[in-house]
């Protein structure tokens, strides 16, 4: 018997493509964000709110993942920015190759912002790097404040947690402080913004976060291309 050391990651191939995408995003100053949540937490709603707040001519595009339908892309296309649906046909997450393929005919130098809505799932998308600058996890108040402890990986890997549907707080037993505490247990540095995509609360704070990230991404761009 002989033992051969295998010094590599299991998702090697995905990570390689993701690293390549990340380098291209940085080169072009494109801020790429990967939105992850359980089905129905409000990813598409948040993107709709965000797109509707952006001025016409803003260089933004959206890739939205779904197992079956084109519904989310149809909702998002109404705002006049380029949107593509990625239909995974059964797969519970997006992977870097799908992103690479769907970006093939979108010149990145024309994009300042790329939003990726992952397939609704709090588990699987966490394993797949898409080359994004940051993962953003959405949690809605109807899901229970224990979710960060039950699904620690995605809260650990996300830079920002958006607590959505705060308009429902009067009607559901959800302890905001406990949710925040749980998220910080898993990821002490996680940033948290509370919003209601329905009523509009907190969206300003989210848009400020977005703008700061955008500036930071531009500063990463090599001076020669800027």
């Amino acid at each position, binding site marked *: *018997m*002989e*033992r051969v050391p295998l010094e590599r990651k299991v998702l*090697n191939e995905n990570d390689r493509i993701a690293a390549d995408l990340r380098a291209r995003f940085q080169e072009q100053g494109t801020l790429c964000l990967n939105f992850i949540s359980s089905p129905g937490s409000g990813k598409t709603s948040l993107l709709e709110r965000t797109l509707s707040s952006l001025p016409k001519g803003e260089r933004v595009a959206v890739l939205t993942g779904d197992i079956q339908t084109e519904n989310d892309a149809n909702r998002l296309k109404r705002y006049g920015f380029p949107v593509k649906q990625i239909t995974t046909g059964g797969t*519970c997450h997006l992977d870097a190759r799908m992103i690479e393929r769907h970006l093939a005919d979108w010149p990145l130098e024309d994009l300042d912002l790329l939003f990726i809505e992952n397939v609704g799932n709090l588990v699987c998308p966490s394993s*797949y790097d898409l080359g994004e600058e940051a993962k953003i996890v959405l949690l809605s108040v109807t899901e229970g404040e224990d979710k960060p402890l039950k699904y620690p990986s995605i809260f650990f890997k996300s830079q920002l947690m958006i607590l959505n549907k705060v308009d429902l707080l009067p009607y559901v037993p959800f302890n905001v402080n406990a949710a925040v505490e749980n998220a910080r*247990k898993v990821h002490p540095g996680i940033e948290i913004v509370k919003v209601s995509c329905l009523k509009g609360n907190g969206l300003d704070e989210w848009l400020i976060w977005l703008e700061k990230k955008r500036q930071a991404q531009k500063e990463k761009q090599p001076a020669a291309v800027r």
Partner: protein
Amino acid sequence: MHELGIANSILEAVRTEVARVPGRYATKVSLRIGEMTAVDPEALRFSFEILSQDTDLAGLQLEIEICPRRNRCEECGQEFTVRDYDIQCPQCGSLRTQFLSGDEFAFGYLEVEEYGTSSVGAQSTE
């Protein structure tokens, strides 16, 4: 349930490695899975068995090492295992500690055997 796809990548990687060592076959592959990853070891084991049975890799053992979350103290340099999300340094009590490891998802090693040297696991002769 993304473990099926992952199991498939593992088997592919094993095939690639085995091809580099002619005259041998794989008996065991080991993985290191950090507790901060979203990979479910049981689901992975199950997928691995389903996908390897009745193939050239039937009988291949899967060893999984779960790697705990470890932090390093920024004050005193102590490295420690984080239990129950408690990130306080056990040596000096500081709360300024940084994530060190626990999100890995990597191969450890592959065990190979020469054809004819062992009765277990040998499936084909080639």
